[in-house]
C-alpha cells in the first residue's frame, strides 16, 4: 500500500445518504482514516476552506469523491475545481453518476414545481399570491436575495470528465469499503468505467432460477408489490413483480429482493449499457409472455428511470 492517499470529498445536490454510508463503515472508518489525508470534505465533516482547496496545485490530490447531482452554479464550480485538483475523480453514488431520484424533477417545469409548492398544497397559506423572489425588499428597507432556482438536474459527467462511477442510493457501506480499498491499492480498471464487480443483481440473487439450474419462466401477469405475497426463494419477475435486477449492478448484494421487494435500479447499469432505462425496458419487454402486459405497468417512466433520467439519452422533458 502506498503512503497516505489524499482525498477530497464534496456533497453536492444530494441527501447526505452517501456521506452516511461512509459513517456506517463504523469502526472500519477509524482504521481507514490513518491511510487517508482528508484535504477537503465539505460541507459535512471537515471545514477546509474553499479558497485553500482552490489554491492547491492542479493534480495534487489523489482522489476526489463527488456525491450528489449538479443543479446550482456553486455545485458546478466545485465540480470544476475538483476535476482540476484531483488525479482521479469519482462520481460517487446514484445522484452524481446518474442524476438520482431528484432527477425525476426533470419531468416537470420550474413553474409546475413552484405552483405545487406555493399554491396547490393543502396547508399552504398564501393570501397575497406570493412566489419567492431572487431579490426582494421586506418592510420597505431590508433587501434580501435568493439564488435562481435552476430547472434541470445534471450528472457530474455532464459538467466535467469523470474517471470512475460508483452506483447505489446510497452504495452499501461494505461496498464503499471495497471501493476505497481498491483505490488505496491502485486496483482500478481503465478510466471511464464503473467501480463494480460487473455482476448483476440477478447474478447475486438467491431467487435467481438460473443459478439453481432452471430456466427463467416468462412473465405471465404484472403485479404491484401490494398484490399478494411473493413466494419465498422464487424469482420476483417470474411471479409478475417488475424487478430491474437483470440490468442493475449487483454490488449491493441484492438487498431489496432479500426482503421480498423488487430492485429499482439504484446501483446503476451493468457494464456496457449507456441508457439504463432503455435497457431496462428492453430487458423486461423481452421477458413478457405477451406485449399487452406492458399496459399494466403503472407509471413506467418513473419506474424505469427512477434513478437515471438525467443520464438518459432524453435527459429531461422536451417541450
Amino acid at each position: 500500500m502506498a503512503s497516505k492517499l489524499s482525498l477530497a470529498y464534496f456533497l453536492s445536490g444530494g441527501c447526505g445518504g452517501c456521506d452516511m454510508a461512509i459513517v456506517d463503515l463504523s469502526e472500519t472508518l477509524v482504521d481507514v482514516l490513518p491511510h487517508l489525508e482528508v484535504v477537503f470534505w465539505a460541507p459535512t465533516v471537515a471545514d477546509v476552506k474553499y479558497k485553500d482547496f482552490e489554491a492547491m496545485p492542479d493534480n495534487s490530490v489523489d482522489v476526489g469523491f463527488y456525491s450528489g447531482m449538479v443543479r446550482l452554479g456553486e455545485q458546478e464550480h466545485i465540480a470544476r475545481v475538483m476535476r482540476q485538483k484531483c488525479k482521479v475523480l469519482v462520481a460517487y453514488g446514484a445522484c452524481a453518476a446518474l442524476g438520482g431520484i431528484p432527477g425525476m424533477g426533470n419531468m416537470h417545469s420550474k413553474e409546475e414545481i413552484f405552483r405545487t409548492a406555493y399554491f396547490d398544497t393543502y396547508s399552504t397559506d398564501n393570501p397575497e399570491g406570493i412566489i419567492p423572489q431572487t431579490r426582494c425588499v421586506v418592510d420597505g428597507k431590508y433587501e434580501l436575495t435568493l439564488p435562481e432556482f435552476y430547472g434541470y438536474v445534471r450528472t457530474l459527467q455532464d459538467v466535467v470528465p469523470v474517471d470512475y462511477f460508483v452506483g447505489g442510493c446510497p452504495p452499501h457501506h461494505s461496498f464503499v469499503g471495497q471501493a476505497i480499498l481498491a483505490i488505496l491499492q491502485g486496483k482500478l480498471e481503465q478510466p471511464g468505467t464503473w467501480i463494480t464487480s460487473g455482476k448483476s443483481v440477478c447474478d447475486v440473487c438467491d431467487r435467481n432460477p438460473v443459478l439453481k439450474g432452471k430456466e427463467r419462466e416468462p412473465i405471465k401477469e404484472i403485479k404491484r408489490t401490494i398484490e399478494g405475497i411473493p413466494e419465498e426463494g422464487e424469482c420476483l419477475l417470474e411471479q409478475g413483480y417488475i424487478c430491474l435486477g437483470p440490468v442493475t449492478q449487483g454490488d449491493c448484494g441484492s438487498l431489496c429482493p432479500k426482503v421480498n421487494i423488487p430492485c429499482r435500479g439504484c446501483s446503476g447499469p451493468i457494464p456496457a449499457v449507456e441508457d439504463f432505462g432503455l435497457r431496462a425496458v428492453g430487458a423486461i419487454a423481452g421477458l413478457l409472455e405477451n406485449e399487452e402486459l406492458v399496459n399494466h405497468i403503472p407509471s413506467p417512466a418513473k419506474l424505469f428511470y427512477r434513478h437515471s433520467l438525467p443520464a438518459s439519452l432524453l435527459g429531461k422533458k422536451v417541450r
Partner: protein
Amino acid sequence: MVAVKKIEINPMTRLEGHGKITIFLDEQGNVDNAFFQTVELRGYERFIRGMPIEEVPRTISTICGVCRCVHFTASVKAADAVYQVEPTPTARKIRELVLNSHYVEDHAAILYALGFPDFVVGPTASPSERNLIGLIQAVGAETGKLVLKKRRAAVKVIEMLAGKPIHPVAALPGGWSKRVTEEERREILNLANEMVELARLTLKVFEDVVLKNKDYMELVTGDVYKVVVNYMGTVDEKNRVQYYDGTQQIVDTEGREIGRFTGKGYLDFIAERVLPWSYLKMPYLKPLGYKGIVDGPGTSLYCVGPLARLNVAEGMDTPLAQEAFEKMFATFGVKPVHYTLAYHWARVIELLNAAEKVKQIAADESIISPDIRAKLGKPSEGVGIIEACRGTLIHHYKTDDSGVVQEANLIVATTHNKGPINVAVKRAAAHFIRNGKVDEGISNLIEIAYRPYDICLACATHVLPGRLPVEIDIYDHRGELLKTLRNF
C-alpha cells in the same frame, strides 16, 4: 433607510438546500433585523405525483439520507390511511423496531458529530477542530471506535429488517414485506443491549462534559439562547413521548394545552405562510392567527424536535429515560424549558428511550409471527404523522382509485422550526454584535443558536446536519462591503 449595514452569514452559499443568514445593523452598528433564508427547493411534492402509492415510501425516503427512516415511515403510514387499513400488530412492531433503531443511530451521530464538539472542544474553538474527525482525535481512537461500533448495532437492525440500511424498502401499505425469524429476533435483542450501553455511555459523557461544567451551564441557561414559543409533539394515552404513533399535542409558552389532533386534523392547526425571501414556507398555529416572526407569550410560532417532545409530554415510557427526564426538568425547575441548548440534553434522553424500546420490542416473541400484511381497502386519501428525530413529520397524499398519487403535501421537522430558528439567530446576533463589532468567535456563537435545532434543510427543501461553512459579509451604510469573514 434605517438599516445601514447588511451582514450575510451564508452557509456554503449555493449548495442544495442550504440556509443563509442575513443580518441588518442600524446606524449604531447594532442588530436591527435578521433573516434565516432557505435557498433551495427540489420539488418532491410534484414529481411523486403519478407514482403508485406503494412505491412512494422507498422513493421519498431520499429527501434525506441522514433522516434515513423517517420519510419512509411517515409515507407508509399515510399509505395505510390511503388504503383505509391498519398494519397488523406484528408489522407495526417491526416498523417501531426500525424507527427506534434509527433514533439510536441518528441521535448518536448528531450528538457526537454536532453537539459534543461544541462542548468537548469548546464553543469558541476554531471550526476546523469542531467536527467528527476532531472529536475522534480528542476522545481517542479507541473511544471513537467503541461508539461507532455500538452505533453500528442500530444500523444493522435497520438493514436486517428493512432491506437497505439507508433508504429502506420493506414497508408496504398495511404491513411489512419481510417477516422476522426467531434467530433474527435473538440477534436484535443482543444488538439492543449494545444500543442501551451506547445510550448510557452518551448520557455519562453529557453529564461529565456539560452538566459538571459551570461555564457551559451558564451558557445553556442564559437568556441569549432562549426562545419562548409553543411546542408540539406526539404523546400516548398517558401523555408520554411517542415516535411512531399517537396524538399530536400542542402546548403554549406556559405549558397549557392549545389543542390535540391526529391525521387530517393537522389542517385545523397548521398553516404554512409563503414568504417572498425564502424557498421554505413558514408554519404557524392557525387557531392563533399569523402574528409574524416574534416569540413570547401569545406567539403563533411553535417548535418541534427532542426538546419540544419532552416539553409537551409528562414522561417517557421506559425506566432509564424516565429517570433522565425527571432529572432534566428538576435541574431547570421550569416546564416548558425554552433554552435551545437543552435540545442536546433532550436528544440524549431520547437516545436512551429509543434503545430501551428496541430492547423491549425485541424481547416480545410475538414479533416472529408471519402475520405481516393486512387486507387493503379502497384507496383515496391519507395522512401519516410520525415524530422524526428532528420533530413532527407530516405526509399527506391523495390518490386515484387505483392508488396512484394525484396530490401530495409534506410538512417536515425543520420547516416547523423555521420561525423559532429565525428568532434564535436574531437574539444571539443582537447579543454578540455590538457597535458593528463582528469577529470569528462571534459568528461561532451565532451558529450555536441554530445548531441545537439540528437544521435539516435536506429535509426542509428537501442540508444536511453538520457544521455548515459560514460566510459573513459586512456592509456599511452606503452598501459597500467593509469586511468578509469566511470559514470555508
